[in-house]
């Protein structure tokens, strides 16, 4: 099993979700996150006080897939989340030791 964490732009979430569902992914966890990469932050001004905000808001999607389905999921994200501009985000893939469905106690691929 693999865990895919994808940091993407807010407005791409629906498209990415639909593509992943299409690709057979049966569940996901989504959260609002902040961070920075190559994309610069922005400036804010309040009554003349200027602040540089380094952390850019993004959406993080976490999905778990079977080893042989990882590439399909990654492709789905790549094709839908890409705009070509700096700030499209990143995908991280890692190995997962175990997954367990709480209701039944099923483990591994059965639990997804």
């Amino acid at each position, binding site marked *: 099993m693999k865990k895919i964490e994808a940091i993407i732009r807010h407005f791409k979430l629906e498209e990415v979700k639909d593509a992943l569902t299409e690709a057979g992914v049966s569940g996901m966890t989504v959260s609002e996150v902040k961070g920075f990469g190559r994309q610069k932050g922005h400036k804010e*001004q*309040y*009554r*003349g*006080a200027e*602040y540089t905000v380094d952390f850019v808001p993004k959406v993080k999607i976490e999905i778990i897939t079977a080893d042989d389905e990882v590439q399909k999921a990654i492709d789905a994200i790549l094709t839908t989340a890409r705009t070509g501009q700096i700030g499209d985000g990143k995908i991280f893939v890692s190995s997962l030791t175990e997954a367990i469905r709480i209701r039944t106690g099923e483990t591994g691929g059965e639990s997804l």
Partner: protein
Amino acid sequence: MKKIFLRGAIAFATVLLMTGIPVLADDAETIEEVTEVVTIDSGNVAWMLTSSALVLMMTAPGLALFYGGLVRKKNILGVMMQCVFLMGMMSVIWAICGYSLAFGGTNPYFGNFDHLFLKGIIPSAELSMEASVDGMIFTVFQGMFFIITPALICGAFAERMKFSTMCVYSALWGVLIYCPIAHWVWADSGWLCEWNEAALFPALDFAGGTVVHISSGCSALVCAILVGKRLGFGQEPMPPHNLTYTTIGAALLWVGWFGFNAGSALAANAFAVNAFVATHMAAAAGVVAWAGAEWVKRGKPSILGACSGAVAGLVCITPAAGAVNPIHGLILGFIAGIGCFFACTTLKNHFGYDDSLDAFGVHGVGGTIGALLVGVFATVHITGGRVGLLEGNPGQMVNQVVSIAASAALGIIGSFILLKILDATMGLRVSQDEERQGLDLSQHDEEGYIFL
């Protein structure tokens, strides 16, 4: 603030409609005496009760949201509590002694204790309900001003003042600084009172340019300096945490200000209509001016700028709403929008004080601009008597300057002494740890935002 108008309007209505109930009049009284009879005019009563409620609404939710959105989220309850608690505490003080100290007696400088515990204001065995109505309306309307004025100062020491010290400071400030200034300007015997023929410098202050805004704004500056900067001021970002609240608050202030200014006619009459429209125009021009100044200076207008501009325009028209027409209102609002914009950005940055929510920059500066400009634009078509510089009465400028200087001086000196005493006895600030934790938790054991 013109008690005289309420009496006049009521008498007029009585004579005109012949439906009055002359509760205190003897049949043998002359016509002159009858004009002093208190008769209830339902239109005036309705408008004044509405206005009183509108002015209360300015403190909370108006100011509470306006200021609450501007602080960091760990301090929102701290600011809102200051507003709400002042609604309670200042009202209690007003009933016990505030009204009497502001409006009692015939001394030009101080009130007296004639109306302690609203003696003579609330009906007694000798005084019927109807006879006390105009006095009671005036008392409650004025009481709402007594609440919001110290609440305005809270913007200067937001996010770091100890709550207990804030309470003591506000109570003493109300009694020792607000009441005398209100007496000078609005009591029939006051030395700055417009309609007091014996006044030394009869100044135009319709709804509180000196009494409310200059007094609070100048005190706010002293507070900002003596309480000191917030921890990390200038080093770490301190952006407003919720400008949607601030926008709602500003809109409520705008609406409430109709009660503040048009209500200061103390009757539902032509003065009220003119004050209402002039007030609206000043706020409108303030929005355009401040946001426009930002647009020109940094390329984009901001919602905070638009809201601040509205408040600046409203502050500026406050002393003038009973003496200028709505087009003058536009001019005042526009000048205040630009003037306060520079006060809150350039001036504040230059001197480096931490007037956190710009209580001085908006109320002190806007109030001063308004109190000066009413001396320029006051017109006989509105006042029916006293005029300003443009209509050939340069002496009015002197009166305005004296009233500004006197109220600023009492605000600054009085606040300085009060804060020095409180600093030595109670301490002005929360501890550094408490400040980092935020006032919500450290002062009230509560959190503004609990979403789980």
